[in-house]
Every structure is written in C-alpha cells, then in structure tokens.
C-alpha cells in the first residue's frame, strides 16, 4: 500500500544517512514538492514514523563541540528502508507503465 508523499520524502532523505530535523526539512523543501514545510505537519509525521518503527532516534552518535546539543538525529530502521524500497518499486512500476502508455515520451 502507498506511503504518504511526505513520509516517502523523509525516508528518501534519510537513505543517505543520519540527519537532524532542520536538515531534513531543508532537503525536502529543495526537492520541490513542499515549498515551505510547516513544523506542525513535519513533526507530527516524524512522530508517527517513529511510532511505526520506520525511523529511530540516534543516541550514540559522537558529536563535535560545535554541534548543538539539542539537535536530534534520525536514521532509517531496517523496516524503514524496506518500506522505502517497496514504495520506490511501486513508483517505478507506475513510471514504467506511464512510459509504456506514451505519457512520458514528450519531454518538458
């Protein structure tokens, strides 16, 4: 079953490794689907993903002095990375089918 777009975006951003909240938001905004991602929406999604076990908070990461103590880092769980793969495959299948039906032949 499909994932919410924002959930997939978070999973995608975490695929490169651990991120803290603000960095996640910046990356997702840069991708362009969300021009301004509002905090209420974002953190509520994050909370639900933590609860579902798709991501987890990082406690062990050693931090340099310069880094803000309060920042919290997140990373994918195995379940999260499986969900991301499943969703990516689903999207890929959709894209392939779209191409087969000539929806993507003309570019731009």
């Amino acid at each position, binding site marked *: 079953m499909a994932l919410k777009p924002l959930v997939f975006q978070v999973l995608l951003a975490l695929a490169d490794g651990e991120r803290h*909240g603000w960095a996640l938001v910046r990356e997702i905004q840069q991708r362009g689907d969300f021009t301004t991602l509002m*905090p209420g929406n974002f953190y509520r999604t994050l*909370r*639900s993903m933590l609860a579902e076990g798709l991501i987890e908070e990082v406690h062990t990461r050693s931090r340099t002095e310069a880094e803000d103590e*309060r920042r919290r880092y997140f990373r994918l769980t195995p379940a999260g990375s499986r969900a991301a793969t499943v969703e990516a495959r689903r999207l890929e299948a959709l894209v392939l089918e779209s191409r087969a039906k000539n929806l993507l032949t003309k570019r731009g």
Partner: protein
Amino acid sequence: MRATRFAYRLLLIAFPAAVRDEFGDDMATLFAMQIDERRRQRGSVVGLWIRAVVDVLQHGMAERFGAGESPRPRRTGGWMQAFLHDARYALRMMNRQRGLTLVCVLTLALGIGANTAIFSAVNAFLLRPLPYDDPSRIMTIWEKRPAEGVLDNVVAPADFLDWARQNATFESMAAQITLPADLTGVEEPRRLFVAAVSPAFFNVLRVHPILGRDFRPDESFAGKPRVAILSYRLWSSQFGRDGSVVGRTLTLNGTPVEVVGVLPASFEFADERVDLWSPLVLEGTPQPQSRSSHQLVVFGRLKAGVTVQQARTDMDRVGAALQQQYPETNRNHGAWVIPYEEWLKSPVRSSLLLLLGAVAFVLLIACVNVANILLAKSAGRRREIAVRSAVVAGRARLAGQMLTESVMLAGLGGLVGLLVGWWGIQALKQLAPAEVQIVGWSHLRLEPRVLAFTAVVALATGVLFGLLPAWQLASQDVGASLKEGGRSPGGVRRRVRVALVISEIALASLLLVAAGLTLRSFQSVLNDPAGFRIDRSLTVSISLNGSKYRTREAVVATFESLERRLASIPGVRSVGETSHLPLGGRDGRQGVTVEGRESTPDAPTRAHPRVVSPSYFRTMRIQLLSGRPFSEQDAPPALPVAIVNETMARRYWPGASPIGKRVRFNGAGDPWMEVVGVIADVKHWGLDARVNPEIYLPLKMGFGSTMTYVIDTDLDGAALAGSVREQIRATDLNLPVGALRTMDDVASVSVGSRRAGMLLVTVFGVLALVLAAAGIHGVMSHLVALRTPEIGVRMTLGASPAQMMSAILREGAIQAIAGLAVGLGGGVLLMRAFRSVLYGVEPTDPLTLTVVSLVLLATALAASAIPGRRAMRVDPVNALRG
C-alpha cells in the same frame, strides 16, 4: 528570533503536552529559522504566521482528538480536510482584502457585542435560578384584595402569624421588613439597614451562617435578649472580617444587640441595602399584633410535592377563615401565593425582553450590511469563481467555501464582539437603576452561558449573512460569466440588493419608533407636574432613637431646634421637614373615619399620613389650594388639625369643601381632627405613579421619630454638607447623619430604570440608523456603478446631470418609503405589545412617527446623494467605452 520562538511556543498549546515536551523546542527552532529565511527573501512574514496558525491548529487538534497518524494516506479526503482547505483559502482572501474584512468584522462586532451585553443581563436576572437551595419551592405570600385590583399588598403582622399557624402546605413561613437603624458606640455612628425577620427566615431560604448560628425560634418573643446576624458586607466593612465578632455587643438605636452569626458572601437578597438581620418580635408583646397595619413581606417554602395551585387553594381557605373571624379588618382580604422567582423577575422581564429584541434588530441590520458587502465583493469575484467552479469544484463545494468564509468572518466579529460586550456590561453596571430590587447583580458578567450564547449568535450570524451570497454565486451560470468577462447587469442580484436595503430601512425605522416612544414616555414622566420642587435643594434624614427621646416633647424639641440651626446656615433660604419625603420610598396607610361618610368594605376610607413642620409646604413649593397652612400655634393643647391633599378632598368630600370638616384615624382613642387646608397633589411613589389620598399632621401633633429635612439653598450640596453635619453634631453628638441628597438625585433615582431603558433603546436606535445609512450608501454606490454605462447613454441622448441626480434620489426615496411602511407598522405593533413601558404616549404617537419618517427619509436621500454626485460627473464617452 526570541520573540518569534516565544509566540510560537504559545501557539503550540494546541498540541498535547507530551508532544510539546518532546518536540516543542525543535518545532519552535524550525519555525524561527523559516521566519528568518522568509525575511531574507523579503517575503510576507504575516502570511507565514497565518500558515503556522492553521498548521498548528490542524495538526495539534489531530494529535489531540484524532487516532494516531498513520504513514499511509487515508482513502477519503473527508469533510474535515475540505473544511480546513476552505478555512485556509478564506484566511488568504481575508488577508488580501484587509480593509473590507475590517469593516465587516467591526460591523458584526457591534451587533454581536450589543447582544452579548444585553444577554448577560437577561442571563443574570431572568435565566439564572435564584441562588437558594431548591428555589422553585420558595414562595412569597401577599394580601390579596381582588376588589381593589391588588394582589401583592404587604401583610399585617397578626395575619402573618395566623397564616403561619393555620396553613397546611408550607414547610416553613417567615416575614421580613427592612428598617433603618443607627449604629452607635463606634468611632463614626452609622445609619444601617436592618432586616427584621421572623426566626424561620433563613430556614425558608436554606441559608446557613458561615460563623456562629442561625436564629432560635424563641427569639421572636418579646423580652428576649436582642441578637443579630451580620451580612458579609458589614462584617468586612465594619469589623475587618474579625472572626471574634460573634459574641460581641453592638448598640443599635440605643439598644444592646449581641452578634450571633455572619452570613456567607455568596448570600444575595433582593433588598441590597440590608446590613444586618435581627429577629422580628411578634409574639408575647403587651398589645396584640395589628391586623390593619400592613408592612411585612412574607416568604414560605412549599412542602415537598405540593404544587403552587395546592398552596393557593390552602391559603384561600386560611384567608376565608380569617375573613369570617375578623370581618372589620379582613373583609374582602385573602392570601395570594406567587413563586418568589416570578415575583422578583416579572417587573424587569418586559424591559429586558424589549432590549433583547432591540439588539437582535441591530444585529440583523449588521448582517444585512455584511451580506451586502459580500455581494458587492462577490460581484468582483464572479470571474474567479466561475473559473474555479469550471475547473475544480462542484457547486456545493463552492457554496461551502463561501459559507466557510462568512462563518470565519462572523467568528472574528464574535471575538471582537466579546470585547464590545464586556465593555457594554461595564456600562450597564453604571446605568444600573438603584431602586430595582433584583437578585443577580454579581452574575452580570461574561459567564460561560453568555460565552456560549455569543458563540452561537456568531455562528448563526455567519450562516445567515453568508447563505445569500453563497447561493447567488453557486447558482450563477458559469458559462455566461466566463463569456461576459465577469461583468453582468445582474437583474436578480439587483432585486435582491434592493430588497436588502428595504428590509434594513424597515428594521431601523422599527427600532427608532421604539426609541422615540420610550424617549417621549420619559419626557412626559418628567414634564408631568410632580407637585413639588425637583432641584438642587438638599435633603437629609434624621432618626431620634434611644433613651433621651422617650417623650414626644423631647423628640419635637430636638427636631425643631435642628430645623432652626439648619435655617441659620448662611445661604439657606428655608428649611422644612417631613416624615415621608416624596419619592423617598417610605409610606404607610391607615384607615380613617370621615365624619358623615360611611366606610364600606368595598370603598374603605383610608389615607396615607405624613407629619410635617409648618415651613414644609413653603420650602417644598407645594401649592395650598384652599384653607390655611400649618402654623406654630398648631400644638397641644389646641384642637387637632389636619391638611388633606386634593385627591382625598375630591374622593371623600365630593362636590364640597372639606375645610372645617372632621376626620380621625381608626385607632382606639385617636381624636377627631379638623381639616384646615387642602394642598395640591404630590407624586409620592414615583413620577409615573398615581396619587393616593394623603393626610398631613403638624409636627407637634404628629408621631414618629424619623424626619427628613429639605433645605432650600442655591449653594452647592458639597459646600453645604460640612455645615449641615456640624449643625447636626451640635444638636446631638450621637446622631448618625444619613446621606445628603439633592431633590434632583432623589427624583433621578426614582426614574432610574426608566432612564436606563430609554438610554439603551435610544443608543440601539441610533446604532441601527448609522448601520442602515452605511448600508444604503453601499448599495446605492454599487447600483450607480453598475448603471454607469446606461447613465452614459442617457447623458449622450441629452439627459442633464440634474435629471440623473433626481432619478437616483427618486430610487432612494422609493426604497426608503417602502421600508418605512413596513417598519412603522411593525414598530407600532411591537410597542403595543410592550405598552407597559410607555407612559402618557400612545404607540401611534403622530409626532414620533413623523420624526422617525423624516429622519430616515433624510438619511436615505443623503446616502443616495453621495453616489448620485458621482453619476452627475460621469463622462458619457468614457462610460460607453468602459
């Protein structure tokens, strides 16, 4: 940055505390960074804030009430999502048209605020149950005199005792009377008000002292030590909430009284003056209690399961038995049971309901105005709406969108309206007429029920004024609008708006008729001759109590010496004294025997006695119609004399002069008095009350130990107060000085509730007029704008600007006349239903109707003339091209 974080953290209250603890800091940091970024990009910070509010509300509420968020999307969009989408869209639109939004919100706030204020009074005085345990079982019991049309006369003590013993339907019954008493033996002697009550009184109301004890049943017997229970107010003001006050002895009217208890702060009684409570001595007195001196208010608590009707039947039985037993005093007298709540609330009910009606009309006018504004606005948005409905939304969704917008507008209006309402409540408290006895003053405030009322009114308002534009927009022909490019003469729309203006004028004229009639009533109350001077002359009341004043001679000598002292103050022209100051709220009535005239039970001869000094009529400018005034020689051992008022002369000596005739009170041993003069009628009970027979006795032949001095002077009351107090102290150090009031004050208190009602209705009438004028102006401007091309054509064809102006004025006048016809008729019908608040004026008063018509017609013409001038300046060429 810090302020942003702080404000955002406040917003986060929408989220559950657990979420706030976990992510609150992160969220605030993220938002602060977003604001920062927005500033760097020179974008709208306000817009971001609005999005943040919506975001936090949406997700906070979802966290609180929704099932846990799932990473999977829900299958349906759902109405909630649609609503939130609409709400966000509405916020954007309101933000874009700030001026328009402000006008709408303020208009609605005035209407909603006025409703909030008046409803808070309705809530405090009418809706709230009385603050006693099981209040519906508390009754008041009155003497019923059906032959005289009186149902709630105060009760004679002997009758009360028999009622209490012989009834079978009341759990307990108690009598009460409020009397002034002087508190001495304290630093500053004070005049207090004592409620004398029979011992069961607090049992009937089910009130328990917070300190000490209730009265004991035997404390109503003569010869027992005197005791008192303090009101919370007196306990605070005089004794600083000293817990050891119980057991202390006070001196009241020269008699020692032991404090046995203190009442709770929450206890409210209709007579707000009461400072302390003491047992009414009715039993074991040397003489039996009177059956003809009526003075007590009687309360009773019904036994469980007894209905008011059963109690009435029971008391009818008791009353009939007493009639048989005591025919000379009780003939045609019965007992009448009224629920206390009903008796207390019915006098204010009609005024409050009239006011509630008035503010409802003001709100309706505000709604019509806002609907008009939205219609005008939507006219400009036809194209946008047409596009949206062609591309995206179904019509129902579109109407929903419009409704969401108007409800949100009304919600904002409601919030600001609460402020207006709060302010209105403060103003109501200032206006509060002091003489109205009602329980509930402490609840005149923004209570939960008032807040709920405001919320419902705001919501209903939003739906009401939003439905029309929503319906219009949703039903328009999408294709036509797109083709026209958004311009349309809109025949239907025009008719709708003209109808709105007419209804607005109708509502405003209806309110103005109500305002005009109450204003005229007030005027005729004030203009009716009162029979005495109402000006800056000062009044002060003095009671002589205690051992020094046991004999009549001592009392009279002190009163006379004080009168001489007051008259000697420089600047004082004359001083007079009376036992019963007109409009002072004190009165009594006694049966009299008029020589040569039989007193029958159906037409008893009775008079209200007053004791006055010889200079009283002169000082009060009360006109002597025939005979002579009192003189210093009217004193024992000369033969007793009396002066009667015109009403008494006409009623008991019809067609003859009463001078030289004899009359006497019905008490044993009361002597015959010769009538030596007739004075003009004096309005004793109120400027709008009828006059009863009055009989005046000279001070030296009179009775009673309380007199009110009237001091005729040009001096300012405040300047004189010091000298007056000095002279009173010089007469007797222990005399407490009551409040010094001018006759103006006394009179204005007596018309206080009428004045308050008149002021409020007038304010609402003017508010309605202003709102209606704004509405007419708005609509006429819009109609002129729509007709600009037509005006252009007509002017090219040779119409003069003056002709255009007169065409527009004619249109305005026709609308005004149509509205007036409905409104004046409605106003007359309305005031016919509220006739009880009118005085000396008919609901069809021609002057009021004429003035209201002229005012509204002038307003409508002026409001049309402004857009009319614009029409006169239309350049035909531009108009046709546009």
